[in-house]
């Protein structure tokens, strides 16, 4: 644990002396992360359960509009943005921050610096989020997609985020490993990009709103970049760390990983406006966005090739490691959703799939299939180490994985196909609009079934986590050697 003077000195200009302290042991680092990381992770998972419940209500309403229709706070216009915000800012952002904190400590080789700062940040984040989600359900939504939380909630979130950013700067300055791993590049970039995106969107859409189509442009620039410049770097950072760690082999090509990072930084920011193809926007803006979307093939293929060749010869380990299962599934989904995104940016395809359920499937393949799976995998690795407890139930791990995997397939595949059929029907002037709506019903019912499978997986995961945390306060410790190495040893009794 660092002293206050050391914490403050980390914020001062000039390099710290190389021998200011020795590199910390991994167990020491992990133990130091326990409270702040668990705070972010556990609250993130509670928001995941809330978001899942809201998602199920939303999904059922799409094919059974009378469901829970007598309460105004449960109407579709409120439940749907409440689901989005609980999942984006409640689950994904908090879990992502928790994983970021642990990865930064591990790769910087320092124990957790200023844990109080990060814990207060988590507390503020949850207060701000609760105020925001309740505000949405009470009817105070801003009606701007991905920014629905009312203005009175966002300053609290921003203060919380600022504390996390300060923590990251301190940790980076105090690092005992001077060279950076590619994961750190991704994490530091994400921590820089998010406040820029969030502040710009808040100012241009809510504080001093731009007029006309500029609002749509800023909205899609923000929404698309939250996925690409906030969640994607954190997810890729985790993949680049956990695949090598689990299989015990360095990344296939570090050159490719560096190329992937810098090309993502260069091209992703321009992508968002391809969602406005056909809209009342200057054509050159859309064209630039489409070109940048195609250029995304560079980071996507470098990442895909690198991950695949790193895993080559180690696929049998997928049977044994829950971390690897989730992380590799997430990596595959990253490639799939990115290639789908490139295809969807073309004008000819966009005019069919835009405004259809295909876009919803695409968004879920990205945020759920890629990011959420990687976060689940990361937590399977991190939580036993910071709590020094094994996962209590391997059966619940299997239920979690297969529930999420089958739910994901059942969600994305039918909705993608249904969306294309919906788009083709909408573009056919001879088909009445109500006929198009009726045609989507079977796909929407399958989506609810998929949601139930996902919910089953989430409940299994949270139950396993609660069980594990209950053991933290129990009288005996389980051996941790098996967690670290996968090799069973005789049980070690005692505290």
């Amino acid at each position, binding site marked *: 644990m660092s002293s206050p003077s050391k914490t403050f000195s980390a914020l001062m200009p000039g390099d710290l002396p190389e021998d200011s302290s020795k590199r910390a042991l991994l167990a020491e680092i992990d133990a130091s992360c326990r409270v702040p990381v668990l705070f972010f992770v556990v609250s993130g998972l509670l928001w995941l359960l809330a978001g899942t419940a809201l998602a199920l209500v939303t999904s059922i309403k799409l094919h059974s509009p009378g469901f829970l229709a007598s309460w105004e706070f449960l109407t579709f216009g409120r439940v749907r943005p409440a689901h989005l915000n609980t999942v984006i800012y409640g689950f994904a952002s908090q879990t992502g921050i928790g994983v970021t904190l642990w990865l930064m400590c591990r790769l910087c080789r320092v124990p957790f610096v200023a844990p109080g700062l990060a814990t207060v940040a988590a507390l503020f984040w949850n207060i701000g989020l609760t105020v925001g989600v309740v505000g949405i359900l009470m009817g105070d939504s801003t009606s701007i997609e991905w920014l629905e939380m009312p203005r009175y909630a966002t300053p609290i979130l921003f203060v919380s985020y600022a504390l996390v950013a300060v923590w990251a700067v301190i940790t980076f300055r105090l690092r005992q490993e001077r060279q950076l791993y590619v994961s750190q590049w991704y994490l530091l970039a994400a921590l820089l990009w998010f406040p820029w995106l969030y502040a710009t969107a808040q100012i241009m859409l809510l504080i001093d709103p731009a007029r006309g189509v500029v609002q749509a442009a800023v909205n899609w620039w923000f929404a698309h970049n939250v996925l690409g410049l906030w969640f994607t770097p954190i997810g890729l950072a985790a993949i680049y760390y956990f695949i090598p760690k689990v299989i015990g082999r360095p990344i296939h090509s570090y050159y490719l990983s560096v190329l992937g990072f*810098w090309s993502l930084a260069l091209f992703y920011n321009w992508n968002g406006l391809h969602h406005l193809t056909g809209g009342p926007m200057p054509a050159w803006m859309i064209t630039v966005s489409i070109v940048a979307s195609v250029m995304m093939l560079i980071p996507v293929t470098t990442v895909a090739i690198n991950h695949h060749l790193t895993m080559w010869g180690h696929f049998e380990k997928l049977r044994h490691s829950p971390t690897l299962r989730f992380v590799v599934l997430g990596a595959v989904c990253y490639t799939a959703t990115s290639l789908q995104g490139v295809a969807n940016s073309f004008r000819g395809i966009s005019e069919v799939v835009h405004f259809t359920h295909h876009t919803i499937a695409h968004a879920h393949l990205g945020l759920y299939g890629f990011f959420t799976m990687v976060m689940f995998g990361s937590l399977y690795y991190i939580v036993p180490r910071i709590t020094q407890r094994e996962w209590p139930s391997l059966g619940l791990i299997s239920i979690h994985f297969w529930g999420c995997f089958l739910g994901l397939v059942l969600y994305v595949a039918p909705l993608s196909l249904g969306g294309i059929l919906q788009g083709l029907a909408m573009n056919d002037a001879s088909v009445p609009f109500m006929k198009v709506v009726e045609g989507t019903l079977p796909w929407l019912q399958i989506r609810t079934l998929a949601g139930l499978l996902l919910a089953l997986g989430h409940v299994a995961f949270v139950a396993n986590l609660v069980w594990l945390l209950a053991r933290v306060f129990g009288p005996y410790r389980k051996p941790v050697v098996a967690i670290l190495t996968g090799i069973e040893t005789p049980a070690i009794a005692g505290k």
Partner: protein
Amino acid sequence: MNVLAILMIGGVLAVPAVGLWALHWASCNGEFRLIDRAALLPFDEEEPVGQPTDLILNRHSPTT
């Protein structure tokens, strides 16, 4: 031009400027030269290369 507009333009200029500075810093600090060493950074003496971790499922051990 109001304060918010200046902030917006400042942000647009600052982010790529930070990116260029980071590229320069990385170049000066050997981030692009010591590639082979960087690839080994997730590993150390406690968890070295060649040692898999987290293999907790289907271990077929009497204790599982």
